[in-house]
């Protein structure tokens, strides 16, 4: 085959590109996989069709979650019935909630405001409205109310919840 060379070059370029993508992804994921040691724990329980959150100090919240800006949080996610997925689209946080398992994911909320928590795994009748509100508060404040003015980013979740 006289025309093999150009094909080899092409395949080599494709492979080089894939190696670059793979290595980069590996490197980023390696960093993301390491939970900061000082992370605060929040236990998340999913069930048809709402979310329950338990803070380290024992406070529980249903359908809403209050967190503080700039603090790393580690979520331990599980489910009581079927599979769900814990998703905060504005902070690219996603992990499945599987009965019988505890999955971990962590995040730092770097912007205060109100955001959307939603279920990303099909879980039956009300899957589409299995949502919760996320309140990210400034560290100085000690109020847990969401009524005070907050710095709203024009994100999907924020607009949805205030509009």
């Amino acid at each position, binding site marked *: 085959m006289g025309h093999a060379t150009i094909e080899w070059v092409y395949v080599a370029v494709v492979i080089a590109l894939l190696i670059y*993508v793979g290595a980069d992804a590996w490197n980023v994921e390696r960093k993301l996989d390491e939970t900061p040691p000082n992370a605060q724990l929040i236990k998340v329980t999913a069930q048809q069709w709402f979310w329950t959150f338990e803070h380290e100090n024992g406070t529980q919240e249903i359908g809403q979650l209050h967190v503080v800006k700039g603090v790393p949080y580690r979520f331990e996610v599980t489910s009581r019935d079927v599979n769900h997925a814990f998703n905060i689209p504005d902070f690219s946080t996603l992990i499945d909630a599987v009965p019988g398992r505890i999955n971990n994911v962590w995040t730092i909320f770097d912007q205060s405001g109100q955001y959307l928590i939603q279920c990303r795994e099909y879980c039956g009748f009300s899957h589409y409205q299995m949502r919760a509100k996320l309140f990210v508060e400034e560290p100085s404040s000690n109020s847990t109310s969401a009524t005070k003015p907050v710095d709203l980013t024009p994100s999907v979740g924020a607009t*949805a919840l205030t*509009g």
Partner: protein
Amino acid sequence: MVLEVKKPRPVWEILFSTHHTDIGLLYVYLALTAFIMGGALALVIRTELFLPGHQMGLVPDSTTFHRIFTVHGTNMLFLWLLPFASGIGNYLIPIMVRYKDMAWPKLNAVAFWMIPVGMALIWLGWSDTSWYGYPPYSTIRAPGPAAEMWIFGLKILGISSILGAINFVVTILRMKHPDLPLMKIPLFVWATLITSLMILVAMPTFAAALIMLYTDRLGVSGFFNPAMGGDPIAYQHLFWFTFHPEVYIFLIPAVGMVYEIVPKFSRKPIFSYQSGVTAFVLLAIVGFSSWAHHMYSTGMTFTEKTVFMVGTLAAVPASAMHVFNWMATMWGGRIRFRAPMAFAVGGIVLFFFAGAGGIVNTAMPLDFLTHDSYWVVGHFHLFVMGQITFSFVGFLLYFLPFITGRMYNERLAMVTFWFMFIGTSLIFLTQHVTGLYGQPRRTFDYVPVQPLIILNQISTVGAWITGTSAALLLANLFHSVARGKPANMDDPFGIGEKYYDYARREPHH
């Protein structure tokens, strides 16, 4: 083919026939029917999502919506893609390997007739498990008897495709004309051979998973039920071990069809036959190394994720080799842009975008952005609707003069192509962005914010345009079969090259 049109036969003679051309056409009719029915459901889904909130009168409640996308997905994959590929295979493989029929004609008929049974179970069952039927939802919450009917329907379709695959492998490897070496058979035959071998490896796993799912539903076992010591993730491994390779099983026959079309309409021999064969074999092997990239978010360890990322990326060069092969074939060719070629080339363009999006999903950190969002819906539809369905439609038009002796309307077919290409791009390229805005898939409604509303509306308009193109295609087929101009059977597309050597075809026996 001409013979069939010249001498009309009673319907029952066709229905009870075991001749490979009759069975092949029955597969094609069934597949086209399923395509239209599944497409109607897709239009309902998209119309419901045109506006946020609940569109009164269209879909009564969310469960009905879930049933609609479950049947849409199951139907499109198992009753459109697989049967269409089997139909063309049945018709052409014996001709291409120069044997009088399939190796076991009766088994062939049995494999076909199982499909309408499976189809009836799936459509009448109207299950809401989604096409992947993940437990525990499918075992403890999904209403019966819908879920049972879905399980049995898939079971029957799986057995049918295993029987069909055995027949293809034996026909190609054992019944091939002795003068025809394996490295001389058309690439479409290679595609069918590789696909069939993959089915034989992958399908039994899923068959086992379905039985476990069924006994779990009966409550006699708890394979996937944590309350009984099982693990829901185990099902996902079994499922994706079958269905990741399965996407290549859907894809490879379409690739084989493009290999039939592109060289002919470029009026140039294929750039590299060996490279095509190599890429098929590579795809078949590597296709099995990547199943768990559907499961990054189930809580895998970093090492597991890395292994499957590498396995997935390894499959990319093989697909890229096919694309290169087509482009190198077209390069410098005297291309004749008749409708089959337009569909093939349009499919290649969409294939490229689908592949690019796939690399994003594979990169672990990015997958957490796209997983289970509309991005994924856009991505895989660029494959199934873009690359695969486009190749199938192109091949159908190419094939039409061959079986009917009549020509379709070329101008209408080109209009159909542009409608389908523009419509498909509008729907599915847009859905990538919808996904980045966080809209989950399998959702009856979405957060009513401006960007999501506009994006969903563009998708829906695209779906209506695509729906129109399907109607045009159908009209063209009906019209040309009944009243089309007689085709010049030596060279229906004016390519200046002989068409299939259909004279070699064996008569009905």
